[in-house]
């Protein structure tokens, strides 16, 4: 309980960059990263599902790798670059993954969607041209209770094609 141990620090200072924005904040050592993002930084797009690191709803990218922010402490993110769903759309334009999720109806209630989108970003960063079977296997990290995953897989495959095409044009 807080206050029982007078030697325990009551807060720590952390520095994080979230969606390109630097933040310096005072947090309790026990504060969960997901609560820090949602409540302290006002970014409610990252959701809480099981609070045990099983369902993947709270998935964000920390230094480019997906992590479960419900079982990560805010202090563990000190010095890190974090990406959340709020950073995906740019200049009012949906990210190709967001747009394809809409086109393929890869969401119903939308609650797992931010975590699923962030995981999909990581999957496509690692492999820009995955097969449907590879996407299926890769998103098994994240539970979705609505869609049965099928249209999510279709959305990720379409988005991958669009992102490859954009890259080719750019290069």
């Amino acid at each position, binding site marked *: 309980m*807080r206050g029982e141990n007078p030697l325990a620090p009551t807060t720590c200072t952390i520095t994080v960059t979230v969606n390109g924005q630097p933040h310096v904040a005072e947090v309790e050592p026990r504060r969960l990263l997901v609560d820090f993002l949602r409540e302290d930084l006002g970014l409610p797009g990252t959701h809480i599902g099981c609070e045990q690191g099983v369902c993947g709803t709270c998935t964000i990218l920390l230094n480019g790798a997906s992590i479960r922010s419900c079982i990560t402490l805010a202090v563990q993110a000190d010095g890190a670059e974090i990406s959340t769903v709020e950073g995906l759309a740019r200049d009012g334009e949906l990210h190709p993954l967001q747009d394809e999720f809409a086109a393929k109806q890869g969401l119903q209630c939308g*609650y797992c969607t931010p975590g699923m989108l962030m995981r999909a970003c990581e999957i496509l960063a690692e492999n820009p041209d995955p097969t449907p079977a590879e996407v*299926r296997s890769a998103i098994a990290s994240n539970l979705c*209770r*609505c869609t*049965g995953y099928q249209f999510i897989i279709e959305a990720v495959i379409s988005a991958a094609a669009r992102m490859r095409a954009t890259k080719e044009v750019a290069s």
Partner: protein
Amino acid sequence: MTTASRPGAPPVRDHSAKRRWVGQSIRRVEDPKFLLGRGGYIADRITPGTLHAAVLRSPHPHARILRIEVAQALAAPGVRAVITGLQAAELCDPMPDFGPDPARHTWRCLAVDKVRYVGEGVAVVVADSRYLAEDALELIEVEYEALPAVVDPERALADGAPLVHEALGSNCAYERTFDFGEVERDFAEADVIITDRLRWHRSGGQPLETVGAIAEYDPGTGSFTIDTNTLSFTSYLFMAANTLKVPANKLDIRPVPAGGSFGSKLFANKPAVIAAMCSRATGRKVAYLEDRVDNISNCDHHGSDRVYNVELAMMRDGTMRGIKIDVVDDYGAYMQFGVGHHGNALAQVVGPYTIGSVRYRVRAALTNKNQQGAYRGFGSEVNNWMLEQMVDKAARELGLDPVATRRKNFIRDFPHFIPTGNVYDSGDYDRVLDKALELADYSRWRAEQKRLREEEGRYIGIGVICAQERSVFSATEFWFWFDEPGAPVTSTPESVTLKVDATGGITAILYSCAFWGNSPETMVAQFVAEEFDCSPYDVSVVYHGSRDGLPATGPGGSRTTVMLAGAVEGAAGKIKEKARRAAAHLLEIAPEDMEWADGGFRVRGDPERRKSLAEIAIMLHLFKHSFPDDMESGLEGSKVFDHPYTTMPSADRKDLGVFYPFMGHACHVPVVEVDIETGAVTFLHYAAVHDCGTLVNPRSLAGHIVGGTAQGIGTALYEEYVYDEDGQLLSSSYLDYLIPSAMEVPEVGIGHVETPSPYTPHGVKGGGEGGRMMAPAAINAAVNDALAPLGVRLTELPMTPERILSALRAAGRAG
């Protein structure tokens, strides 16, 4: 039983008009906000300064509460209040309860003198943060006197079982046997009686977002405002208001988007009551959000938990004559919805078959478990599974082909009244079956099954099930159980208000309707677009609060789309009538000479003379004096759309009347492989064909079919709220309660058949629950087909590897 001319049927509709928007797989209008992370779920709405509540849960399945000591918790940092169950019983009346005789199994928001299941709340702490509230929970001391628990429903009904509710005098909360048709005659004339005992264990919706509420009490007005992801049931608002001891017009329940429900947020008032009680006690805004353990152990929405003993009367040629069903349903510690789940079963108890008679005995057992609520199917999915198991067993015992046996018994004349009195409005079961077998590549898989068994020793199974998908419940199914029901209510309406602003923009207002992952906004937008020839993306949809809401019921029993269609049609009709008169006046022509076309009214035979809706709207909003005196400013219309087809049960309850008339149908054909060494089941193929009448948005329906199938896979193979013999809940997290991931769900091939309902707007039937109503039966059939050469049948769900291996062992066939 077909008697198409029975009284009470609504007029048959003409669906010949061409449709532009209904039937299109447009993008959902709901989605952009969710994709941007701006969904506005309940947890996103907590504002600074809001207090947080956390509930202390019972570790005991059954125990008397002797003493609760809260002084230390009250003194803990940041704590604003601690309320025990005893204090809560002073602050609040019992929870809303539709069950029989609730005074004898009283349900409250917190336990008072004894706990009846692991997870039941005993006290609540309100603190400055959830962290501090949970810290303080650990400082509450509760002294319990443990009592023996009763866990098995059949043992619960036996003499001498520990009583869950002493006031009831037994653990049997309801028992009755119904006879529909000539049961004894059909059984006497049958060639064979197929019997079986079947066991369906409890699972649940488990949406990834739990139930939550943010409540604020205003002592200045004596009013509560509660934001929550459950429903308000505007017509039944007084029930929740009674619990909080305020008049219904001092309670505003405002629905917010839910991160999934699958039934489990239906009338889930407990978190709202707890938050509201705490708000009044502290004078502050209070949020109570269940955590995952709260939700798994204490959500009041566990699914059906049934033991069946069934007899099916058959002729040797495969004709089904009658069925006797004896079911014990384990309701847990309370029963908020009574035995309404069996009304769902009775709506389609004979499936798609011409079974002529039914005996239905139901016993509701109370045990030391969390209570049943709603889960996608509401008990009808269990009946589908039971019946299809019986059909397969009969075919096997009689040496008949299971597909041919089904086809031989199909109902083909509609409307068709089944023995219970409910009607099947329309259908074409042959077409659905044909399409499913084609999509499943059935003949090829039958050959492949034989080859793989002979050449590679693999056990492949093909399940084929044909089952019903009832939609749009009527209130009668909650009381026809009783000769003298306490409240024989008959209203289950849905309402919509449409407002056309001065520029012609349309806003649709919904009442007691919430976004649950279904698509009410897209459905309404497509219906409005169909009526007014506008873009669905230009329609704005508002979810209204309950206090001054029109009568409405909200999602449940696959009713939303059909009921919203009727309400939009009615409201649009009122607007168009006024717009017609206004346009006629402006064009100086008789209203009856005007016709609606392309988003406005034009003169019949002179299409150039027209007024668009926007032109009419601005006149009606801003130029009152251009119109006759009796024409009011503005352009809006509301429609309270009542259930379109309900008839009353007979006094002797041999005929329950029409209560679930819009009957969808589906055929699922999974192909599985069973590993007899490990008991694992994997999918090789999956085909599903559904007929939900006219399609509104085929893609969104397909999404529901796949998603429901995924949940059905969970029910069939993985998911179970496991209570051990002592009543401890063993599956209290997602480490133990196994939700299918993408690797457990196959790609599902989907087909649609459309037989429009003769009685609903556009011919739409509900389809939100279908996947889960079919998949458990289909997968069980497939597993049994795989194991048929070993003489093994699984009769218990979920078919975990352990259950499959033990069935193999029992047959001396363990690998």
